[in-house]
């Protein structure tokens, strides 16, 4: 979906993307703190649109004929020719800016939807065991981060209890200090709990091999990339070295992973519902791609001259399919978190 949204600046299509994503999230999110973050992403998307418009007004290249806002234009030296500081704002330019922003905003929304529906903790389950130190930091981060919002709410309420109304610098400090302490305490408690329950127990010792493989792999990857991008180096230094380097990296991870023995209670089931959601997500992307191939102009907003946007059928059909998971997948909590992996596809 994110990929599909990235292709369009057509407002009708972007709005359709937004509706589909919101619909799926509303229908299938659960009560976890992750499920509640969707609103945050939506807000972030809105902020991006607003920023884009403001930037356009301030420094963007103004074009078009429908005058919106006459502003004085500052003269800039010739080396800054691409930048126009101030100046009259035209509808077409502003709309273009807003839609550029909306495209990015919609991608953010798609990622937000994935986040709201799939718990990141499940992804960490398949995290390579060799990197368990990083893994534990990640688990702590994804667990404690959403709780920040709760801490913030609590502390702001406490501030009100002390009769403070404004959040000046001092206010900021008075809010930040307890929250940081709270977060630190929670992180340490969680890390201690994970450790106390055996996270990252080393059963065998083969650290040296892992280290050697990883170092070799990283070096190989770097050299290989350089070889690929630099045309003067012999071809043998390019792709083969890159592949060998990546292989060494994987081998290193595998060797390290063997050191930490761990089993998985239940493999993530991958059933009809999962195929349906992935299929629908891909369908949306295919819809956009087909349109891009056939009539690329219809994905964009006609700005010169300004006209009503077209509604390309394949994209709409794809999006209609993408809303299917909202009704076709089982209701959470049973499978909520794996309902919509596709959103990132």
């Amino acid at each position: 979906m994110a990929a599909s949204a990235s292709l369009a600046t057509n407002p009708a299509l972007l709005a359709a993307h937004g509706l589909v994503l919101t619909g799926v999230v509303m229908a299938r999110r659960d009560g976890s703190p992750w499920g509640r973050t969707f609103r945050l992403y939506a807000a972030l998307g809105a902020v991006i649109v607003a920023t884009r418009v403001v930037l356009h007004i301030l420094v963007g290249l103004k074009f078009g004929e429908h005058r919106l806002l006459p502003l004085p234009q500052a003269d800039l030296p010739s080396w800054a020719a691409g930048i126009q500081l101030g100046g009259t704002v035209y509808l077409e330019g502003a709309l273009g800016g807003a839609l550029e922003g909306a495209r990015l905003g919609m991608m953010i929304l798609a990622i937000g939807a994935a986040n709201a529906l799939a718990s990141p903790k499940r992804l960490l389950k398949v995290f390579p065991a060799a990197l368990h130190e990083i893994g534990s930091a990640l688990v702590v981060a994804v667990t404690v981060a959403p709780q920040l919002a709760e801490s913030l709410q609590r502390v702001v309420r406490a501030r009100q209890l002390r009769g403070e109304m404004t959040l000046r610098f001092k206010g900021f400090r008075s809010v930040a200090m307890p929250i940081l302490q709270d977060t630190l305490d929670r992180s340490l408690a969680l890390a201690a709990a994970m450790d106390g329950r055996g996270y990252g127990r080393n059963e065998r010792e083969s650290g040296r091999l892992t280290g050697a493989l990883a170092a070799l792999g990283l070096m190989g990857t770097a050299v290989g990339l350089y070889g690929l991008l630099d045309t003067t180096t012999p071809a043998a230094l390019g792709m083969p070295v890159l592949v060998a380097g990546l292989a060494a990296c994987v081998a290193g991870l595998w060797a390290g992973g063997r050191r930490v023995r761990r089993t998985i209670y239940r493999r993530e089931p991958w059933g009809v519902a999962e195929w349906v959601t992935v299929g629908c997500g891909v369908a949306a992307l295919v819809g956009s791609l087909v349109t891009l191939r056939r009539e690329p102009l219809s994905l964009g907003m006609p700005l010169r001259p300004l006209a009503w946007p077209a509604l390309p059928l394949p994209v709409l059909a794809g999006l209609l399919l993408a809303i299917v998971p909202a009704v076709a997948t089982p209701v959470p909590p049973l499978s909520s978190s794996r309902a919509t992996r596709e959103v990132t596809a």
Partner: protein
Amino acid sequence: MSGWSDAAYGMGEAVLELDRVSVRYPEASAPTLREVDLSIEEGELVLVVGRTGSGKSTLLGTLNGHVPHFTGGLLTGRVRVLGRDTATHRPRDLADIVGVVGQDPVAGFVTDTVEEELAYGMEQLALPPTTMRKRVEETLDLLGIADLRAAPLRDLSGGQQQRVAIGSVLTTQPRILVLDEPTSALDPTGAEEVLATLTRLVHDLGVTIVIAEHRLERVIQYADRVVEVVDGRVRSGSPAEIMRDATVAPPVVELGRYAAWSPLPVSIRDARRAAAPLRARLGGLGAPLLTSASRGSSTVDTLQGVHSSLTSASRSSLTVPTPGIRATGLRVDHGRVRAVRGVDLAVPAGRVTALMGRNGAGKSSLLWALHGTGTRSAGRVAVTDGSDPATLKPVARRARVGLVPQTASDLIYLDSVGAECDQADAESAKPTGTCRALLDDLAPGIPADRHPRDLSEGQKLALVLAIQLTAGPDVVLLDEPTRGLDYPAKTRLAGIVRGLAGHGHTVLISTHDVEFVADAADEVVVMAEGEVVAHGPTPDVVAASAAFAPQVAKVLAPAPLLTVAQVRQALAEAGDVG
């Protein structure tokens, strides 16, 4: 080591051995634990008691290597867990033999649902999936939470969460279970659930349990042995032996000490048997049945009169006290959940009112709504001058209603006690020194340059209370103030709130602590499912309920006495009469 030769003498195998263990944290002036020698045998339920800051948590932390691997500090001596030395074994290397459950179960949850949480420890120990499935089922049944298997952890009640936390360490089948204040956040019923589970583990599976707890009245009757920590030094013995002169003691022990019973009873059952003569003496005074001890009843017997004069001077008078804060049709909705359903409540001025009820009964929502900053969906709130706190500006509201939230330390953010006090004076536009004077009243002798984080729980609470009282509010609301307080600190707090009420303040305290209620409150409001189900004088309300009756009342029923102080005074006055 061979346990068999010992077993012949009726001794179990020592599973935990502490050999001259001392712990010293950097920047600490004195070691937290000094020269601790302790040996805990298999299948024992050991209760660790002591005042706040005595080193209980540190002692528990040493048992799985959490101290010093996670906390830092210098540990000398040896801690052996089933022969494994914590100097060479990190907590993760002991995960298969020691399970640790902390005070706040949510802080330790790694996954999202009950089933995943139960399996997590086993996944780390690399047990085969078939074993895991079997053990998860067994544990779900053992703890009675089978119907919750797919439930998100955050949606569970406090008691359920604590049981899941216990279950999640049980699945690795540890031989030792270490619990740090497992019931401190739970209502009496939730605490009963957890403790019943623990005793079952000891008796059915022979698990060794080490448990630290402030509310001894909940645990001590189950303990085989009590370990008391005083200033980092440790002594251990049978409950009756240690309780004879321990620094902390539950009311039933206080009563036993007062009545000089020997052997000292630690359970209600034993105490009731020992109390027969005392009851006869009290009964001989013509004590009426508890249920008939209602407000304004015309009974003329001494005890009833004594009791009324004890709990509240105004109790015996028939005048209805003016409400300090009144709510009409108050409703609070959190999303689709209706936390408070149309509550009509008049909290009397000049009295201490306790707000009780299950976890999630709507107590906190009610307090915040009364204060005016919390959500309020419908209804009206009025303080004495008729104004509604919700419509006031924060500063004006503060001068009428003060609230001390559950996590009182949220209110503290400066780096010294003195700075906090000055800030409080400035906020309420009071002369400098007002807050400090209040603090010295509540908890004398806290140096002004002390960092608030270094204060004990009781001192922190006193500081926050002083900050809130600086504005001079008529109404004081306290949300769960007794968490983490030991008996002496709770007695102080009871004195403080009674003093506030004596000066005409309206005090409303939400709490799970029945003993504190018996000690401090004149009236009790009981909430269930967002509604007020009972409201009346403390003896009437708490004695009528099995869950809320304090220990002294249980021992001395039918005499209407709730605390040892009341018994003492009743007998003294009876002595005067007779």
